């Protein structure tokens, strides 16, 4: 008998932990198991133990685990991070609290500002000062650092972030200060410094990033230790890798060091799964659409590459666009896949106010108590209850019959709380609620497309997550998108993405040169240093770099601007980079300047170690009983509609309306839409031109 080996992708959510197993011959299987929020590692160990038994194999045949987790994000949202201190330049301990002043709402005199993650009495100043070019104006006062260490000790600080002015230009003072802290503080105290985590200009954003990193560092470290111990206890000793927000994977050790890079690991995994789905398919523009219980998320993928950003705020409630609506959360400036997230998910609460304004979200019933129809104690009508009313989802049970629903309670809640007060009939109300939610969700899609100067109508929407395929066609219709793809394993797609990710890390070096002073030789030198940095770090982490791809990019702007655009740097010729920048500027903002000088701000390098794995194929779907049901569409009214399985589709287009029900999600095909199965088993939906 062949002894197979297995790689396992694990994505932890609030209710379910999604598990995808890839056998060494490419066979893919999926599982949904309950999460164990008191200690997530327990649920993982239980699930792996069960899998080992089920496959009649031994724990050592699990050869790789790739993991996405919300532990980092939750620590911030629930203010359960470490007791964090900040060591900073004399005169500037309040930079963290002053922030950038702006807030995300107008005319609201009752506004509350997020409290700093390092309290003021734990923000200590030391004498030292650098100039903007990194020259030392005041040497580091070591006695001040030791005194600060004493106070941190007294206050039982668990983590210290170090952030000095202009440290991006010269890390020496921060390095020296960290060494002293390491001498003075207990080994268990986590330390990190701005010059290491984010060597970029702008003191608030850098300080915020390094403070977030310190705040969640010990949480991630403890989680990693618990996970390693749990796995060892069941005999699993393979390396564990984590997905970072930039869409690559890294060793557990790096994740502990760069804890802040974990906050969007789950959503990033979904986008990566989309990118891999279309790589090599000549699909120039994809918008990923991931909708779960609390939020809907969208990201843009062009030529197989997800759009990226370095501006992100964690804990800002629900971000519409992470770029303008600033000040509501804690900025992290690190490579992120540019995922825009909006508060419209299955659990979003439907409400009307005194003036009969209807809203869907951003308040959410979450996983618990969840929608009324879950029967777990939820009382307020939710979007899921509206889906149910329209017949979009099964009204008996979800998850292949394992999760029973209380449909009547869901309909009644929507009727009593919304329809009756508005004087509308229930179906019309449910339809209206869906339309409103769709409008909200289109803003997430627009944030990554029209806001960036891209027309979504030229894109294909790839829908996944528990609720994505339910509404994807409606969202597409609202935006004029003509094609929707629902991939295999859409309901656990992020976990699948974990197994399709490459090892990937990004490195940045600021250019010290003024505009006009950088010649091609200087450019080559800068990128040469950057490459050395990357080789050193990755080799240290134990990676073999022979198959690595090195992708260079440049952050450029016109002299006088404050925001850069990033262009690929395939050839290190400044004139060519400048021309690429002019083009990108025109594309993004609709204009370019011939007169103004182009200034290189940062050199970037992404090192990718491509995944070596056999082509994946899916095991047969478990059998499922499906019954036709009443479904309401705007165009056709309420009628009995066929409910089928994915396998009932074939390569020839089938005309809607009908519903495809699967173990992990439901896909609704409306009137005027057709769906077919492509060679890879994806559902390919075509919409009529508007």
């Amino acid at each position, binding site marked *: 008998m062949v002894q197979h080996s297995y790689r396992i992708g694990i994505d932890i959510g609030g209710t379910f932990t999604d598990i995808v197993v890839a056998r060494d011959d490419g066979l893919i299987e999926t599982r949904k198991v309950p999460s164990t929020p008191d200690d997530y590692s327990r649920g993982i160990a239980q699930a792996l133990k069960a899998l080992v038994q089920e496959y009649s194999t031994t724990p050592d045949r699990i050869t790789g685990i790739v993991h996405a987790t919300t532990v980092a994000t939750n620590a911030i949202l629930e203010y359960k991070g470490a007791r964090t201190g900040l060591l900073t330049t004399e*005169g500037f301990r309040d*930079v963290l609290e002053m922030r950038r*002043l702006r807030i995300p709402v107008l005319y609201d005199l009752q506004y*509350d500002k997020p409290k700093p993650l390092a309290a003021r009495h734990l923000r200590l100043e030391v004498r030292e000062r650098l100039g*903007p070019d990194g020259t030392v104006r005041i040497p580091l006062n070591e006695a001040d650092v030791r005194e600060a260490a004493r106070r941190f000790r007294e206050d039982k600080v668990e983590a210290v972030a170090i952030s000095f002015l202009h440290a*991006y230009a010269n890390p020496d003072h921060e390095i020296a200060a960290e060494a002293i802290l390491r001498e003075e503080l207990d080994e268990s105290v986590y330390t990190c410094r701005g010059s290491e985590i984010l060597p970029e200009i702008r003191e608030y954003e850098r300080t915020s990033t390094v403070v977030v990193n310190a705040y969640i560092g010990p949480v991630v470290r403890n989680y990693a230790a618990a996970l390693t111990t749990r796995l060892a206890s069941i005999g699993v000793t393979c390396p564990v890798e984590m997905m970072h927000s930039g869409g690559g994977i890294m060793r557990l050790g790096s994740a502990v060091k760069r804890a802040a890079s974990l906050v969007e690991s789950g959503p990033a995994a979904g986008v990566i799964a989309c990118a891999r789905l279309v790589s090599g398919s000549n699909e120039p523009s994809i918008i990923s659409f991931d909708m779960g219980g609390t939020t809907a998320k969208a990201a843009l993928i062009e030529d197989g590459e997800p759009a990226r950003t370095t501006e992100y705020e964690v804990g800002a409630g629900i971000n519409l666009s992470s770029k*303008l609506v600033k000040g509501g959360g804690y900025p992290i400036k690190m490579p992120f896949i540019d995922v825009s997230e909006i508060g419209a998910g299955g659990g979003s609460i439907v409400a009307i106010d005194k003036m009969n304004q209807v809203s869907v979200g951003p308040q959410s019933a979450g996983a618990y108590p969840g929608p009324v129809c879950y029967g777990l104690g939820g009382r307020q009508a939710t979007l899921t209850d509206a889906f149910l009313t329209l017949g979009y989802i099964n009204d008996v049970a979800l998850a292949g019959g394992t999760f029973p629903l209380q449909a009547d309670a869901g309909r009644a809640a929507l009727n009593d709380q919304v329809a009756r007060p508005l*004087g509308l009939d229930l179906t019309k109300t449910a339809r209206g609620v869906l*339309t409103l939610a769709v409008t909200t969700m289109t803003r997430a899609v627009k944030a990554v497309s029209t806001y960036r100067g891209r027309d979504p109508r030229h894109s294909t929407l790839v829908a996944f997550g528990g609720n994505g395929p339910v509404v994807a066609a409606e969202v597409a219709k609202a935006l004029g998108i003509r094609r929707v793809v629902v991939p295999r394993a859409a309901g656990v797609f992020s976990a699948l993405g974990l197994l399709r990710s490459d090892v990937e890390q990004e490195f940045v070096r600021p250019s010290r040169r003024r505009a006009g002073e950088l010649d091609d030789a200087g450019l080559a030198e800068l990128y040469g240093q950057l490459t050395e940095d990357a080789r050193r770090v990755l080799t240290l982490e134990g990676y073999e770099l022979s198959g690595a791809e090195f992708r260079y990019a440049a952050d450029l702007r016109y002299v006088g601007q404050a925001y850069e655009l990033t262009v690929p740097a395939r050839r290190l010729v400044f004139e060519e980079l400048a021309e690429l920048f002019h083009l990108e500027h025109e594309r993004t*903002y609709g204009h370019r300047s011939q007169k103004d000088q182009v200034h290189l701000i940062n050199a970037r390098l992404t090192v990718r170690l491509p995944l070596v794995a056999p082509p994946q194929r899916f095991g047969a779907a478990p059998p499922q009983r499906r019954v036709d049901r009443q479904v309401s569409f705007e165009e056709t009214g309420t009628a009995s509609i066929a409910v089928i399985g994915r396998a009932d589709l074939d390569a020839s287009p089938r005309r809607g309306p009908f519903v495809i029900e699967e173990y992990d999600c439901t896909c609704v095909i409306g009137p005027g839409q057709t769906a077919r199965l492509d060679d890879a088993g994806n559902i390919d939906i075509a919409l009529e031109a508007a």
Partner: protein
Amino acid sequence: MKTAETGAEKIDPITLEVIRNALASTADEMALIVMRSAYSPVVRDIMDYSTALCDAQGRVIAQGLTLPIQLCSFPRIMGFVRERYGSTLKQGDVLIANDPYGSGGQHLPDVYILKPIFVDDRLAGFAATVAHHTDLGGIVPGSVAIYATEIQQEGLRLPLLKLYEAGEPAESVFRIIEANTRAPVEVLGDIRAQIAACNVAEEGLRSLMARYGPAMLDRYIDALHDHAEAMMRDVIRALPNGIYRATDYIDGVGENPVPLPIVATVTIADDTIDIDFTGTADQVAASINCPISLPESAAFCAIRCLSQQDIPNCEGYLRPITVRAPEGCLVNPRYPAACGARGVVGYRVFDAIMQALAQVVPERAIGGSEGGPYLLAGGGVHEGKPFVLNEMVVGTWGARSGKDGIEGISNPAANLSNQPIEMVETDMPVEVLRYGLVPDSGGAGEFRGGLAFVREFRFLSDARFTLRGDRRDHPPFGIEGGGTGAPSAHLFIQRDGTQRHLPTMPMESFNARRGDIFRLTGAGGGGYGDALKREPWRVADDLHEGKVTLAGAERDYGVIFAADGATVDLPATQQARAARMGERT
């Protein structure tokens, strides 16, 4: 249910919400485009600009997440657009204006760029933007000299002009602008950013038109205005009728300032509010005169803040509000009054109205904030190259009912940002020595006012600089017995150690030598309620966080701490407070 009947068909509340969201996201998108493609630190970092979308009649239908005090000025300038251009506008036209006299501007640096949007040859709406430009000429870099006495000294006046005509740039206008600014790269770059935002709005409105058709969209836009109006009237109707008057002051200009009263009389009559500025100081021979566009905007903004509901930010909500000011006074100056530094008066208008409202609905008002942006403007030549420094600093809110004021925040009437210190030091020959909070500076109260900020600069090159501040002689007010915030300060410390307090609004500019220091301290926020009723644990928290000192806790709050300097000595505190109460009666 509430359905505004405009025409035969009913308004569906869900569609109304859909359209409202689509309009709002377009206005936000405009703001984003400006920020990311602008050139000047004032626009790109401080974010002193605003965006809005207007309907075909020029009525604002959505506002970007920008500056309230600018946003509410669009209705006036759109009135001039209607009056001046009526139905003669063509597709591809772009209008520009900054002139406060006869064109609806505020002061010369605030340049409005407006674009009519056509769908199938029919005027469908307007994109509207305004941005604070780095320099429009005049006697000083930055175009804000308090000592200017008439607008002709302040720079280039642009009455409502066509910057583009049917898609063709008006080259002569561009060239005049280029020749009249000290910072042509920044000014022209920022104008391009504003136009880019207008183009985005054009796309957005066109796609909405395509989706709903002009007739239906018009009907829903009317309904949106009606809806906002109804909500605003509900808010006002809940207030007791009456006449509420409050006076706040500008410290005055020069070395020996004469206080300038701003008088706001707020009359609430059923579902309408009238705001009258009669009694306000006459216009002055300095540039703090405030063309009516801004006071009106500040008034709309203050009333809008009264509502704790999500009223659509369209012009309908203004219908129940009237604003009046006698001609020739500080808040409605006659030509040719200079107005470069008028902002300070605008913020004081907001404050005066807030104090009047606090007499009726203190629980919805806010104590005095830092007073609006403080400005340090200067320039010189460093290493052979000229530089223009523009620091605009804000930072503090007064206390609210049930909540302390906030420190490290923009004035409630302006959603400005701060310039990163590392950017300032990279671009300018100055070193920032300190940026932080001042303990004990928040107005005492059951709820404490926000702390003042301090920002200290060392000049690394000889420079000439000028200032605009306020709130030294008339610090930010408290509400319901709350104390005033700490006064502001302009401290100039020369290299040789001599120190001197500069006027809040000097009628001159100063020479700084390399190594001299300027310390700018804003005013603290006003408190709310009786300081002796502040829960002692809050004072202990503030002490722990270094926001009040031991001495301040005792002096301002009557809270006494035990010998450990951290635990409240409750009996001693009760005794001290009782004694303090006794002294009052």
